[in-house]
Each structure stands twice: as structure tokens, then as C-alpha cells.
């Protein structure tokens, strides 16, 4: 089994001096689905930007055997797909097809192979019908799914999603859950939506003040009321994570 993420003592301070990551230790195995939970300002997004080489911090970070550094940025971007919180940031090309092709073409694939990848990725999120539409013509739920397709087309070994269920109505949220559940990739889901995390991920990590504060099975962590309260996390009223897990299984 390949070790997908291996971080030891990962630290990062923004130019203003704010220490966003204060020594993150995290190991994620190939094929795992891990929810990254934590309050605002915990360092979740900063960690996500490290996984793709957009930020380079101090300490040790290996993704699928590649050591993160200035020379391996291209490999990290090919192997790790980031889906940003606001699909309008991610979808910048005039049409969906061109946007989904953007990543594969940057990987150096030919136009024909890129178009095959586009078709495959849009198929995986059920969005083939909108290939020739402009992103602004799509609903928020459709945009989110297309944003996921833009990175799936690069066939990443690790998919990292930032708040995937934000601003979605219940139906779009349910459809997104089904799309993600059907994926065969290692998943890291950064979210405040604990019910979403419980349905999708078997493991959860609580990040706060730039450190991993708890790491364990998602349902057990979410059942620990004291832990959640200590890190400003809250389950929806009446939600039972253990029962949700059993129902999902």
C-alpha cells in the first residue's frame, strides 16, 4: 500500500507573521477518505495549499513518494487535485469543455487524449450534457460538480476538496455526496459540514491552531461532544454519527 500523504512537523507562517501551520503530523494511506475538521482560521486551507505545492512550508511533506519542494511542484500538481470552495474561482474558461481540458493540456497531453479525459471526467460527475455551456449558465450544484471534473480529468491520486457542500441545496448536496462516494480516489475533505463528513469519510482529523488535535474514526470523533465543543464544532440537532455510519454501511 502506498503512503499517499506523509507530513511531519509541517510549519508555515504567512508573510505577515501569522503562524498558520504549527507542526502538522499527518499520515493518510492510499484509498482512505479523511475529513479535515476545524474552526475558521485553524489552518485547513493552508494545509490544502501545501498538498499541491502552492505553498511550501518547513518540515517534511511527502505525497505519494514525492518530497514537496521547489523542484517537484509540477509532479505535485499532476498528482494532487484541489477543488476550491468557490467554483467561480475554479471555472475560468469560457466553456465547461475547455475548463475541464485545461488541466490535462497543461500536463502535456495531446488534444485528442485531453478530450477523452474531458468526456470521462464529465461522465464521472454526470455533467456530460453541459460540456458546451458557459460556467455562468450553470446552477451552483452543477458548477461544483464541474469543478470536481476539472481535477478528475488530471487523474489525481489524491483529491482534496475545500468545503464541497457549502451553498448547496439539499438535493445538490445529496447528488454531490453520491458523486464523491462513487470515486475511487484517496479523498481529503476539508469541511464544517459534520454530517457530510460522517456520510462520506471513515476517518476524521481535527485541526486547530495549526496542529492536529485529534485523529480517529469519523463516527467516534463526532460522537465525542467534549472534543467538538473544545474546537468550536457542532453536529446538526438530533444527528447521531454512529447511526449515520451504520446506515451508510
Amino acid at each position, binding site marked *: 500500500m502506498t503512503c499517499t500523504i506523509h507530513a511531519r512537523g509541517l510549519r508555515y507562517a504567512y508573510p505577515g507573521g501569522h503562524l498558520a501551520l504549527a507542526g502538522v503530523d499527518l499520515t493518510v494511506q492510499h484509498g482512505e477518505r479523511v475529513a479535515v475538521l476545524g474552526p475558521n482560521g485553524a489552518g485547513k486551507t493552508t494545509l490544502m495549499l501545501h498538498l499541491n505545492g502552492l505553498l511550501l512550508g518547513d518540515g517534511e511533506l511527502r505525497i505519494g513518494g514525492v518530497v514537496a519542494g521547489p523542484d517537484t511542484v509540477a509532479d505535485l500538481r499532476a498528482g494532487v487535485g484541489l477543488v476550491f470552495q468557490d467554483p*467561480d474561482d475554479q471555472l475560468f474558461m469560457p466553456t465547461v469543455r475547455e475548463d475541464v481540458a485545461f488541466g490535462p493540456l497543461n500536463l502535456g497531453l495531446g488534444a485528442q487524449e485531453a478530450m477523452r479525459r474531458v468526456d470521462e471526467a464529465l461522465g464521472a460527475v454526470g455533467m456530460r450534457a453541459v460540456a458546451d455551456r458557459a460556467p455562468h449558465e450553470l446552477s451552483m450544484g452543477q458548477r461544483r460538480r464541474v469543478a470536481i471534473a476539472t481535477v478528475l480529468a488530471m487523474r489525481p491520486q489524491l483529491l482534496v476538496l475545500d468545503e464541497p457542500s457549502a451553498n448547496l441545496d439539499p438535493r445538490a448536496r445529496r447528488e454531490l455526496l453520491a458523486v464523491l462516494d462513487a470515486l475511487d480516489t484517496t479523498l481529503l475533505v476539508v469541511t464544517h459540514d459534520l454530517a457530510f463528513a460522517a456520510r462520506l469519510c471513515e476517518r476524521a482529523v481535527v485541526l486547530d491552531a495549526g496542529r492536529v488535535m485529534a485523529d480517529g474514526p469519523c463516527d467516534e470523533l463526532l460522537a465525542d461532544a467534549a472534543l467538538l465543543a473544545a474546537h468550536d464544532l457542532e453536529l446538526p440537532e438530533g444527528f447521531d454519527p454512529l447511526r449515520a455510519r451504520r446506515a451508510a454501511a
Partner: protein
Amino acid sequence: MSGLGPHDLALASVAGDPGSPIHRRDPRSKLLALVAVTLVAVSTPATAWPVYAGCAAVLAGVAVAARVTPATIWHRARVVLPLVLFAAAFIPFVREGHVVGSVGPFDVTAEGLETFAGVAAKTAIGTVSAVLIGATTSFPDVLRALERLRAPRLFVLIAMLTYRYAFVVAGEVRRMRTAMRARAYRPRHALQAGPVGHAASALFLRAHARGERIYLAMAARGFTGTMPQAVPLRLGAADVLFLAAAAVPP
């Protein structure tokens, strides 16, 4: 939901019959043909009326073949035409020559009227050419054509991002305006316009922050400074024929 509704940017959308022989032409042939018509019109002497008539005939032919109605052309052209014609309207008064009449204290000269008519014809032909490109070619296709015609890639990239994010920024403006109105903001005189300035600066900051996030999203998918090309264009015999048919007669 961000972005504009279907009617807000209708001026930039394709009109007429999308299946017409004009709509189906390679965007490069349309761009070159209609730019050629404009160049002929603007570079011709002011009183070369047969040339203007030739240009107008080509444009009319294109409009009829593409089923773009005069109402659509007028609806789009009126954004530009009145402004230019307003500036040109002073020419009959300032150009010296044979006086043929007067408006109040200002004399109108025959030479001035002639120049005005020439400028008006050039403006109308240029504007209608642009309107017909816009009505028969989607904006992404115009960008692709520009790129293949070796327009500076940075220029094309900026135009592309501007087009894409015009919808997003317009959506933000609309939501901000709604939020201001929802808190009973109804300016009655200039001194109450301050909040509009604050909203504009907030919009600028948001656009700047969004620009940074877009760059991150591009870099995350391997962007290193050059845009890859995804959708191929095909220039066929019919496209060349159209280009020749449109650009040669004037």
C-alpha cells in the same frame, strides 16, 4: 447564485439563426471578412459613395443570410453609434467652406456636411460589422479566432478572463445594490452618494482577492503562463469562399 441572468449580457450573445450558413463559418473567416469590410470603409476617401454602398450591400447580405433582424442590429448598434455620431455632429459647424445655412449663430458648410456624412457612413459600417460578428459568432469563438490569427496571447487571455468574470462581478454588484436597498438606502442628492463609493472600493477589493484565488486555482492545475488550446478550428473551402465573397466586392 452569482452571475447575470440570460438577458443582462444579451448584447454579447449570438442572435439570428444559429444554423445559418454564416453562423456555421469558421470564426476566423468571419472576423477577417468583417474587419476587411471595416478597413475598406474607413480607409476610403470621405466621398467615395459607391464604396460605402458596396460595404453596406455586403453587410446587408450577411445579415439576411444569418437571419439577424434590423431590430437586433439597431438594438446593439445604438450602444455605440449615438456617441460617435454626437462627436461627429460638430463637424458641419467647425469645417470651413461654402456656407449653406445656419443653426442659430452657427454656420453650416457644405464641406462640413459632406465630411459628416462620410464619417457617419464609416461609423455605421464599422459598428454594424462588429454587431454582425457578435451576432453570428460566440464570444469564445471570437477569442479562439483571435488566438489562431496570432493576436497577442496576453491580450486574448485578458479578454477571456474579463468576459468570464464580467458575469461574476455583475452578480456581486447586483447583490450589493440589493443589500443597500434592503437597508433603506435611497440617495436623493449627491451628498448621500458616499456609500456607493464604499461599495465600489469593497467591490474592487473583492475582485482583487478573487483574482488571487483564480490564479491559485490555475496554478493548482499546472498553469505556468501559457494557455493551452483545447477546441480546434477548421478552415474549409466554404470559409475561404465566404471570406473572398465578403471582402472582395467593396
